[in-house]
């Protein structure tokens, strides 16, 4: 695999360190390996999930002290070094989740502060809990048994473990879990519609990153042979955090290079050592403001090539049947008496609506009449004040946006919700996330079930792109596409679910005349395949050309409903909305 080459080259250089016959280099390379063990996990949190964990040194310190105290037998009988490292990993997993709890519900500043707070209290505890931690005097680190008890032995062990961490975190990053993390970061609303449960996902990642951070701490204590609270400064935390950002979001190689550079920098330029944190901070500012993509963007040559101009979206409606091919018979979606008010304004006022399988149901009306709001109630982004929603016989729980995908409801948005830094193919693959069968652990170790999932996703996503006519740009970063292509990409993502219901929110907005025609035949094909379509649109021509049934809303109420022909001749509709 070509992609593994840079990693193998770096590992090779590390393994060749003994040739220098200089134990100082053994120390430096071991330290890089240990830092990378932590940063590889942190990378999933910061680089992929976009959660700003600035105080991860706390978990590093926690692991170092847990392993050291257990191995030294300060509070318990002496524990063998490897067992102590394992227990430290467990402690790190637990506290990784505790510190991460605010990230599950609140905006990211809260999480940054909670990790910062944890970092301050861990140091305070290490200082104050003298009988166990030795206070300011410190405690000896766990000594690994032979053959890892020499500098070179420890170096090999840490390099091996770091390589393992690279492998497992890369596996997660390239799995549906990794794609879902990026989706939560860049398009959380769309992620909910595809059934991604942010809290569950983040907890899994916090467990992994916490465990890796704590094990790294334990290894660090072995390397130092003796630890005091002074070793775990906020500067160290900063080094971890900035390594990821310098490396670039959504990359494994970038942060690895970042780790190497930042760890070597003070060693190579000794006079700068006192100013190193100042420089890190300045670097952070420069990167965020000037090079937001970091090293990863600089080495991403593939996405520098200009895309061909004058691209045409050549959709192939005939492929839709093969793509959707329903197994279960779709049911009717019924809304009864739905009411929703924002403050004193009634956005929807007692709405009844039935969307039948195989039917294209148009929802039109002036701006502010409650069309998109209706979609958002169905999608569970808003909780209706009164009324019921049923699908066949089952009730749709109000306000539960993440369970709609499991009911077979897919949707697109008024403004395309793209995951800009992921490829078009990955953007589309997100749509089938809930069908993944492999667990987090299976994905981490690339077990057969995970590989089967990936193959299915990939094949279906390519088919979906083929159907909507974007197969030429599958590997391109999504934020490089034109607006019209993004609209079709969103449709491909929604079709990944093989939905029983498809909600389209102004899919024709911003499209050219030809593109609207292609869109029309695509929607028709989706409906012919048995999927019920609810279409919100302002293009009256499109609505009347393809809809089987049209509902006209005005001020949150139904003004008229019926076949396109009836609506077109409806007096009030013509005067209120369509115009003479």
């Amino acid at each position, binding site marked *: 695999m070509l992609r593994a080459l840079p990693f193998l080259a770096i590992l090779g250089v590390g393994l060749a360190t003994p040739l220098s016959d200089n134990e100082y280099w053994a120390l430096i390379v071991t330290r890089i390996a240990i830092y990378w063990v932590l940063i590889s996990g942190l990378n999933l949190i910061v680089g992929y999930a976009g959660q700003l964990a600035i105080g991860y040194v706390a978990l590093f310190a926690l692991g170092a002290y847990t392993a050291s105290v257990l191995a030294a037998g300060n509070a318990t009988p002496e524990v063998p070094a490897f067992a102590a490292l394992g227990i430290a990993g467990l402690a790190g997993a637990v506290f990784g989740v505790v510190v991460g709890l605010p990230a599950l519900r609140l905006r990211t500043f*809260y999480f940054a502060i*909670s990790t910062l707070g*944890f970092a301050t209290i861990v140091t305070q*505890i290490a200082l104050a809990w003298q009988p166990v931690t030795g206070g300011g005097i410190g405690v000896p680190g766990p000594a690994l048994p032979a053959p890892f008890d020499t500098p070179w032995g420890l170096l090999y062990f840490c390099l091996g473990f770091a390589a393992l961490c690279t492998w497992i975190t890369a596996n997660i990053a390239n799995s549906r879990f990794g794609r879902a993390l990026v989706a939560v970061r860049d398009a959380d609303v769309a992620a909910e519609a595809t059934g991604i449960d942010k809290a569950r996902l983040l907890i899994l990642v916090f467990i992994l990153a916490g465990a890796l951070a704590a094990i790294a701490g334990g290894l660090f204590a072995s390397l130092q042979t003796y630890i005091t609270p002074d070793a775990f400064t906020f500067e160290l935390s900063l080094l971890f955090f900035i390594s990821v950002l310098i490396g670039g979001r959504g990359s494994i190689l970038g942060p690895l290079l970042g780790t190497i550079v930042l760890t070597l920098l003070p060693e190579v330029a000794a006079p700068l050592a006192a100013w190193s944190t*100042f420089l890190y901070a300045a670097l952070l500012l420069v990167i965020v403001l000037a090079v*937001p993509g970091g090293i990863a963007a600089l080495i991403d040559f593939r996405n520098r090539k200009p895309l061909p101009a004058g691209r045409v979206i050549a959709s192939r409606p005939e492929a839709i049947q093969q793509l959707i091919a329903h197994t279960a018979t779709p049911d009717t979606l019924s809304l009864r008496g739905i009411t929703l008010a924002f403050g004193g304004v009634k956005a929807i006022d007692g709405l009844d609506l039935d969307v039948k399988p195989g039917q294209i149901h148009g929802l039109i009306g002036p701006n502010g009449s409650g069309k998109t709001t209706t979609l958002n109630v169905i999608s569970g982004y808003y909780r209706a004040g009164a009324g019921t929603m049923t699908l066949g016989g089952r009730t749709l729980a109000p306000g539960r946006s993440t369970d709609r995908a499991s009911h077979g409801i897919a949707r697109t948005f008024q403004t395309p919700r793209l995951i800009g830094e992921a490829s078009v193919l990955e953007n589309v693959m997100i749509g089938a996330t809930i069908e993944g069968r492999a667990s987090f652990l299976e994905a981490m170790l690339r077990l057969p079930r995970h590989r089967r999932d990936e193959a299915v996703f990939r094949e279906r996503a390519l088919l979906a792109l083929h159907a909507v006519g974007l197969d030429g740009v599958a590997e391109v970063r999504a934020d490089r596409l034109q607006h019209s292509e993004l609209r079709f990409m969103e449709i491909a993502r929604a079709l990944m679910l093989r939905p029983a219901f498809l909600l389209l929110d102004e899919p024709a907005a911003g499209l050219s005349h030809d593109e609207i025609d292609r869109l029309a035949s695509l929607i028709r094909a989706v409906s012919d395949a048995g999927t019920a379509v609810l279409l919100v649109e302002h293009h009256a021509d499109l609505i009347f050309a393809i809809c089987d049934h049209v509902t006209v809303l005005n001020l949150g109420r139904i003004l008229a409903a019926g076949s396109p022909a009836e609506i077109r001749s409806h007096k009030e509709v013509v005067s209120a909305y369509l115009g003479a």
Partner: protein
Amino acid sequence: MIASILASGLAVGAVYALIGITYNTMFATSRVMSFTAGQLGMLGGVLGSMFILKLGLPLVVGLVLTLVVCALIGVLTEIVAVRPVLKSLDQHLYVLTTLAVALLIQQFTAIQWGTEPQPFPRLLEAGSGLLDEKYWLPVVTCAVTIIGLEYLYRRTLVGHAFIAIAEDNFAARALGLPERNLRIASYALAGVIGGLAGFSGGQLLLAFFANGPLLNFYGFIPVALGGLGNNRGAVIGGVALGLFQQAANFYAGGIFASVAVFSLFIIVLLAAPQGLFGATASRRV
């Protein structure tokens, strides 16, 4: 015992509340939570000690100089770390830029001022024991600040403009309010309040470069408790936190106190994400 818990709890609580107000003042005009809030508090202590003890300037001159420098730092934060990222607020880049500026301030201080805590001068030579100035100065400062802010926001034109910007940025700009200048002014004001927090609490916290992250954390808890942008909530939250922390310190020791404060923080965030005196959530879709 109770008396000393009250005295020290109210004192540190007032400092936390002031840092909370510093966060809120910046948040009001920019929707940005800035990591420089804690550093401004740290600078209040370090600069006060430098001007008065090291350079031997009179109290009033030292105070004014401290506040002027802090106000300038506030303005600088706005220009360097806030304005460039305001366009993409939803990406939370401000967390990174303000953190970077906060660290630049902290490291510069560490290198130029030293990494050891240094004494802060007695300001008024007033009181002793539990009535020592070090206990009541932060409380008085906090009270004066809150009264001053209430007056500013309710009685002056500039204050009304601040509120207009905080309530609805777009509408305020459409009315022709000089949004950028008001934002700069609010960052200068935040600098002054943060500086006051550190200056009035200097005798408790000392002139120590590492106070920043500590104040960032303990100053944010009142904001989380009281709800973003709610100054009265921040004062109540700050005093409650100070008393809780000092009581836990006296009765159960330092380790337990830190753990208890951290756990309280997490629990409040989970139970009442909008804060106890909360505001409403915004629409996302």
